[in-house]
């Protein structure tokens, strides 16, 4: 029911929305919760386990009951708190966890079975038969329990993530936070003020209280305006700081207003990573319920929330409101109700010595011990004196068990808060999060003036630590400074279920049962009862449950322990944390200069690291990739093929000690390499296993260019830098990646020289460019590098031009090759060509193979040290029984080989203990007319000619293979040298 006046709402701006298919009107400034209350809707959700009808309990992000789903399909967002959902035109919200409807929920039957559904019910009941769990019990339980659901569609909303840096982060924009931000900002610090509400002010927006002689919310607005006008301040409303992390890092979730989020390109939410030199946590406090029988009935609300609905949203949560508390807040609530013209049915104060100066029915030393009503509260039962009960009609009960300081963020790095007897709550200790201090209610300051003082002081301290000084001692405005008087009251004894955790349906009885069954540790109790494990993470229930557990185990609260608070403070959509990483945004795409031409030729792309490379180039009439691949292999073997090899890592290495450096990182010797020549090298990790291989060309006496495999380029660069900076920093070596500078193409096949001589400004011959020669050439006046190297076993070259000419040169080379009966070849053909020659890729250099395994032990020079040499010589890495590289070719009825298959002796069962090795790469060789494979086989190099059984358990393929040397084609390499 909307009150006739007051509230921080715009009465001229009507906002239409719907809830569960019914249409309503609210006002600008409403939340969904306040608008529903204004429309008299009190049933907003069903509980998790018992499907009990529930109404809104709070007015903030801790709301456990009023969870709704908005949006459809890919935009469906479940479990949104109606208390945080800004009302906007056209909002469509639905209730959750109810079927067929919120009003008539069939699973409310669970509630009738509640005596059987106590803590540990699932653990005890669904123990056997074991096989029933996965197929029967779990699916049923999952369907029955739970909150909102995702649609299953791809999330089509836009999310953002961003970084921001500041001197001082102020977490929370209530009186303490505003004061802290103001003091720091005036002193010139870069300040971020983050608050999860739509406006700053915190409780000032919800109370009838003056600050500096004006209404608290007006003072807050003035401070906000001053802050917003300062260049060194960023006020971030709708932004919840969700976590505190190392070195002053904080996570924060910003929800954009619906009208902004609806604009093209605008995100729905932004996940901020805030780096702050200092932080002031001014997160306020959360009011806690009292556990009495039936305290979950719609209409039972927190007293502070009732004040917020009245004062901020001008909504009366009921016509006849009862108030129940153990602190002065109850009286404040009753006063606000009276001032708003709402009938106060009773003011119940559990403190026997409480006094009342309001004209309302007053019960001191009394407790609310029960409630009644069908789907909403109709009456409360009051134990006015021991054994004497009175029933009072009320459709709303405002309850207050006191306030829990919001210490959550302070605990995120593992520290524990301490118990304050004075306020009967946990408060932060100093230094729980390095660089962060606490101020205001979250630190136990319970009056507005105390919060203002605390905020100013926290800012001053932070300024001192930042080396900035506040101009003068800040004036703290006048504000209420009444003491906070509380007498702890956690539970009201009596029959019936008294709720602690509304969101996860945990009652006092569940916790005492846990204690009886010896789950006395708070961590055990939580896991046994599931208390505190729902989306609200126990914000409303942790301290209450702890107090009940303490009582049940005869210990004090501090003896019983504290709960652990972990990030995030509020649920954060994974979509926001991973913003931009959907689809192609998952990783940067690295495209070669020939990419567009390859696509134009119809080549499917495969990813190699971040690079995209063409698999094959289909031609008219080819219906399978194999047809294209076989043709491309034949082009290279018989004419000339062109492949883009720009993705291989290229590292320019210069310096007086460059040759010495290469000798150190490669197993073989490069200092003896002549200028204008190229050598194949193998590089080990220090543990003796092969890291990478490739060719290195000597361009000058002190100048080399190293080639790495595509996959290992980054790793090799890092390794070389490590070796230089950490092991030989005094050597004159300098290196830099030139991978991106050059577009490099393989020109391979018997007609490769003819092709090149048609495009080079000066023709080359076997004398100027012998096998493994290199040098500078020009084409069309463009300076290029030519290397006579081969990864196919054919007479071949690689030509490198500055990348700007790559696209142009690729088209030219492919056109020329096609004229000569060849063409472009892709990764599939490249793989077959190298397999026919027994050349290696990272399928073989997979990190667990040694030079010995690869048959390259003689490449480890005896005359010098190198990285990995000592370890490679260890007995275990050279024992004859190791799996060593072999070639495999099918010789039985099955002609197919598969990579990943394992090898067994013919007579043995194909079981793990008989394993003899495995297959790493396979391909069909059109040149040889059969499959060829590479693999590792125990004592492999001694077993050439043997027949071995290949078994692929996964694909169900089994074949007999002959063990051969790795090189199948042209084993003595004559073709490349021609």
């Amino acid at each position, binding site marked *: 029911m909307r009150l006739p006046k007051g509230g921080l709402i715009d009465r001229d701006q009507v906002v239409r929305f719907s809830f569960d298919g019914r249409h309503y009107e609210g006002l600008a400034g409403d939340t969904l919760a306040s608008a529903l209350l204004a429309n008299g809707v009190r049933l907003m959700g069903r509980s998790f386990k018992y499907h009990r009808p529930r109404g809104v309990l709070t007015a903030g992000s801790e709301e456990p009951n009023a969870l709704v789903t908005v949006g459809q399909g890919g935009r469906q967002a479940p479990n949104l708190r109606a208390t945080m959902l800004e009302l906007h035109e056209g909002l469509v919200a639905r209730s959750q966890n109810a079927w067929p409807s919120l009003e008539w929920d069939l699973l409310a039957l669970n509630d009738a079975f509640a005596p059987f559904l106590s803590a540990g019910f699932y653990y005890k009941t669904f123990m056997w038969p074991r096989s029933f769990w996965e197929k029967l019990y779990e699916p049923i339980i999952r369907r029955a329990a739970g909150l909102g659901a995702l649609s299953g569609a791809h999330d089509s909303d836009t999310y953002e993530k961003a970084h921001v840096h500041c001197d001082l982060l102020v977490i929370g924009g209530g009186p303490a936070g505003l004061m802290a931000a103001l003091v720091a900002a005036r002193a010139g610090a870069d300040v971020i003020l983050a608050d999860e509400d739509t406006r700053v002010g915190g409780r000032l927006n919800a109370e009838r209280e003056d600050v500096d002689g004006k209404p608290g919310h007006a003072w807050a607005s003035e401070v906000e305006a001053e802050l917003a006008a300062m260049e060194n301040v960023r006020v971030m409303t709708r932004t919840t700081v969700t976590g505190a992390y190392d*070195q002053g890092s904080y996570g924060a979730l910003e929800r954009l207003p619906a009208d902004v989020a609806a604009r093209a390109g605008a995100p729905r939410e932004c996940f901020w990573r805030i*780096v702050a030199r200092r932080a002031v946590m001014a997160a306020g406090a959360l009011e806690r319920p009292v556990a009495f029988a039936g305290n979950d009935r719609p209409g039972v609300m927190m007293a502070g929330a009732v004040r917020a609905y009245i004062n901020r949203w001008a909504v009366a949560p009921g016509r006849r409101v009862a108030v129940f508390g153990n602190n002065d807040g109850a009286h404040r609530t009753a006063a606000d109700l009276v001032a708003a013209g709402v009938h106060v049915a009773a003011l119940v104060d559990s403190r026997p010595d409480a006094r009342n100066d309001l004209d309302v029915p007053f019960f001191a030393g009394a407790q609310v011990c029960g409630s009644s009503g069908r789907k909403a509260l109709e009456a409360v039962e009051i134990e006015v004196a021991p054994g004497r009960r009175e029933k009072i009609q009320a459709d709303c009960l405002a309850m207050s068990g006191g306030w829990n300081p919001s210490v959550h963020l302070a605990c995120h*790095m593992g520290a524990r808060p301490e118990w304050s007897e004075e306020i009967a709550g946990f408060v932060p200790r100093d230094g729980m999060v390095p660089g962060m201090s606490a101020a205001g209610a979250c630190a136990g300051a319970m009056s507005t003036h105390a919060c203002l003082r605390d905020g100013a002081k926290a800012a001053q301290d932070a300024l001192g630590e930042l080396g900035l000084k506040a101009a003068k001692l800040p004036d703290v405005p006048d504000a209420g400074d009444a003491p906070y008087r509380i007498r702890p009251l956690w539970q009201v004894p009596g029959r019936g279920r008294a709720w602690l955790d509304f969101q996860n349906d945990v009652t006092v009885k569940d916790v005492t049962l846990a204690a009886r069954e010896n789950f006395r540790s708070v961590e055990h109790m939580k896991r046994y009862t599931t208390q505190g494990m729902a989306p609200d993470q126990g914000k409303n229930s942790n301290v209450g449950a702890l107090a009940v557990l303490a009582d049940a185990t005869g210990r004090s609260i501090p003896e019983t322990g504290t709960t652990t608070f972990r990030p995030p403070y509020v649920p954060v959509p994974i979509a926001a944390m991973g913003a931009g990483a959907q689809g192609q945004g998952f990783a940067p795409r690295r495209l070669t200069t020939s990419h567009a031409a390859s696509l134009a030729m119809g080549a499917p792309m495969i990813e190699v690291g971040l690079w995209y490379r063409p698999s094959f180039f289909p031609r008219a009439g080819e219906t399978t990739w194999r047809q294209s691949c076989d043709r491309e292999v034949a082009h290279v073997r018989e004419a000339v093929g062109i492949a883009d090899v720009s993705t291989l890592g290229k590292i320019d290495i210069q310096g007086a000690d460059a040759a010495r450096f290469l000798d150190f990182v490669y197993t073989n010797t490069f200092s003896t390499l002549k200028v204008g020549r190229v050598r194949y090298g193998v590089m080990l990790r220090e543990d003796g296993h092969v890291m990478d291989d490739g060719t290195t060309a000597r361009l000058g006496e002190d100048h080399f260019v190293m080639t790495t495999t595509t996959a290992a380029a980054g790793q090799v660069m890092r390794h070389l830098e*490590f070796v230089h*900076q*950490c092991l030989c*920093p005094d050597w004159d070596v300098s290196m830099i990646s030139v991978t991106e500078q050059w577009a490099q193409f393989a020109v391979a096949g018997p007609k490769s020289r003819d092709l090149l001589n048609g495009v080079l400004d000066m023709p080359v011959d076997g004398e100027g460019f012998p096998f493994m020669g290199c040098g500078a050439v020009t084409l069309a006046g463009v300076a290029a590098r030519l290397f006579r190297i081969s990864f196919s076993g054919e007479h071949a070259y690689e030509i490198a031009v500055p990348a700007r000419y790559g696209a142009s040169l690729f088209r030219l080379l492919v056109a020329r090759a096609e004229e000569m009966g060849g063409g472009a070849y892709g990764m599939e053909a490249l793989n077959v060509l190298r397999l026919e020659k027994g050349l290696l890729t990272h399928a073989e250099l997979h990190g667990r193979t040694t030079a010995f395994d690869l048959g390259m032990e003689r490449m480890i020079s005896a005359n010098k040290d190198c990285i990995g*040499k*000592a370890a490679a010589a*260890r007995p275990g890495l050279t024992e004859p029984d190791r799996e060593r590289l072999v070639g495999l070719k099918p010789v039985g009825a099955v002609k197919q080989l598969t990579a990943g298959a394992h090898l067994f002796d013919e007579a043995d069962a194909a079981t793990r203990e008989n394993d003899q090795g495995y297959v790493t790469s396979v391909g069909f060789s059109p040149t040889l007319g059969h499959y060829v494979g590479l693999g590792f086989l125990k004592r492999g190099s001694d077993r050439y000619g043997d027949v071995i059984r290949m078994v692929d358990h996964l694909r169900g393929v089994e074949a007999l293979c002959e063990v051969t040397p790795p090189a199948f084609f042209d084993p003595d390499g004559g073709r490349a040298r021609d």
Partner: protein
Amino acid sequence: MRISCPICGERDRREFYYQGAAVALDRPAPDAAAQAWDDYLHNRDNPAGPVREMWHHEAGCGAWLVVTRDTVTHEMLASDLASRVQEAGS
């Protein structure tokens, strides 16, 4: 998590590559005993408290660093260039 680079200042952890214990700086002589190589390559303490580690400012300036941090408090205690540490003969 943020790491101080002696060249670039304090930077986000994502710019860095983590390698492992700073024992990597103390490469044994080629002919050192097997135990020395074993210790260099494989044997690591797992202390609760300060540790010296190798980090590479890979997406930043490219320098290799020796970073000292506390595994209990996560405090960053010191950071230096690996080349400087090595040339100083530590």
